[in-house]
């Protein structure tokens, strides 16, 4: 005769057995992904700590180094890439100060209030987390060059973006081609980093003030940075100067609030 209870038990065991491969795979996936996440977090917080420490120690040196590198840039045309990379990692503030420099010299009216920002672009495969660390810098050593009203706040955006922004930035540093800086501005805008989008659009405008696209990214970034008035002002001037219909449309969209 059939022993149903025993058969039910055997069936249950069979069911469990037949699910174990899936169970194991699921557990493995969960484990590896959580391990990866864990490593990723750890890695990030470690690096953040390190860069903060560096900043605090080198409050003044940063500026000096910047000057050195800024001097170097035009003279070293074929750049040794790994060396530049090292420099960038050590001297985090270099590119934006460079740009501030330009701003101050060429367009003093736009620099009433200066935000100096810089990004360290990590070459990491998964763009998941963005961390922002603010480092206050004593303004004094820059005062002769830049009229700063308040503390200049430095933002170090740690972001995992694709390699190509990083590479394009490198290339841009070697040849100052506005097409490249515009590309960088657009990329930053796309990934929602409006500070950097603003910076690079600004740089582009200074290199070539006739690039419509750059002015559009510039004013859009301003709107995104809650500087709608400034955006409107800039766009009005640009429309007057260029008669760009795209800029005109954007201007009316900003004013009407359609573009926010």
């Amino acid at each position, binding site marked *: 005769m059939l022993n149903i209870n025993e*058969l*039910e038990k*055997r*069936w249950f065991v*069979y069911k469990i057995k037949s699910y174990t491969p899936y169970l194991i795979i699921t557990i493995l996936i969960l484990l590896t992904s959580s391990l990866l996440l864990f490593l990723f977090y750890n890695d990030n917080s470690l690096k953040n700590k390190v860069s903060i420490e560096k900043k605090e120690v080198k409050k003044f040196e940063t500026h000096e180094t910047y000057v050195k590198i800024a001097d170097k840039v035009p003279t070293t045309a074929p750049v040794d890439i790994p060396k530049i990379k090292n420099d960038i990692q050590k001297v985090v503030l270099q590119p934006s100060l460079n740009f501030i420099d330009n701003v101050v010299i060429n367009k003093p009216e736009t620099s009433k209030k200066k935000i100096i920002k810089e990004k360290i672009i990590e070459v990491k495969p998964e763009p998941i987390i963005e961390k922002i660390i603010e480092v206050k810098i004593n303004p004094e050593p820059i005062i002769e060059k830049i009229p700063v009203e308040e503390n200049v706040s430095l933002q170090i955006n740690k972001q995992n973006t694709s390699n190509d922004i990083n590479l394009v930035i490198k290339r841009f540093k070697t040849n100052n081609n506005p097409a490249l800086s515009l590309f960088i501005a657009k990329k930053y805008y796309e990934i929602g980093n409006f500070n950097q989008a603003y910076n690079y659009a600004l740089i582009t405008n200074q290199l070539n003030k006739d690039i419509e696209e750059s002015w559009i990214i510039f004013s859009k970034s301003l709107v995104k940075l809650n500087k709608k008035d400034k955006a409107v002002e800039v766009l009005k001037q640009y429309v007057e100067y260029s008669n760009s219909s795209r800029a005109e449309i954007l201007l009316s969209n900003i004013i009407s609030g359609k573009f926010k």
Partner: protein
Amino acid sequence: MKSDIFDISKDVFLDTVNAKDYIELDRVSIFYQSLTDSVLKPLKMVLLYGKPGTGKSMFLTKLHNDLSATKKIHLYKTPILDENEFYKTLAQDLLSIAYDGELNFTQFMKILNNSLSDEIPIVLLDEAQLYSNSLMEKIRLLSDTRKVKFVITLHKTDKEDLIAKEHFQTRIWETIELKNSSSSELKFYIQKKLLKANCFDAASMFQDDKVNLIYKLTKGNYRDTNKLLYTLFQIYSWYEEYTPGKINKNKISNKIIEMSAIHVGLLNA
């Protein structure tokens, strides 16, 4: 005592071979036609082979049943392993000659050649894989006399294996291979069997997905399907008796299919 639907359905799948239970499966019917044709042709011997449980015995039984009214046909479901006994049995059945003492091959050949029959008798030998090679060779020689025609079945799966054997190489064999059913044939088989026994409700419990699961487990083998479904209905009647609330009578449960498969060894747990 209880003669509920599950109990009756269970007995439908008893592993028995009766001509009245024969179901005309499409593919098998074609074979059946060619088999009856070749049986009626002189000389040809017929070799029916296939895996166990593909319906060879059923086939022979059906053939015997259908032709026995009009033909001299004899079915031997279990092999007669002793050679002497084999010839004596044939002499008795085909020629109505009873022998008390010994009857060897040469003697039997002689009486067979001397027989004056207007009709060639047909001998159906099931499970012929059990006959020795030497007896098989003699069966072939007996066929050559054209005084008797053999239809034999073999539990063999590999055709190459068969043909390699010397006594199957001669051209006088006509071979027919029976195979496991397809899943649609299996559905037809299960439902037809149940309907023949008036188990309409049970038949409607086998929807396509259920039959597919059964097919996956039995690979379309009729014997395995019988075993599985016999156990399945056994389990159903157990539940019906002890926990009737637990079972759904509209649909066979996968769990019970799998439980049956575990019980009959189609699944190992």
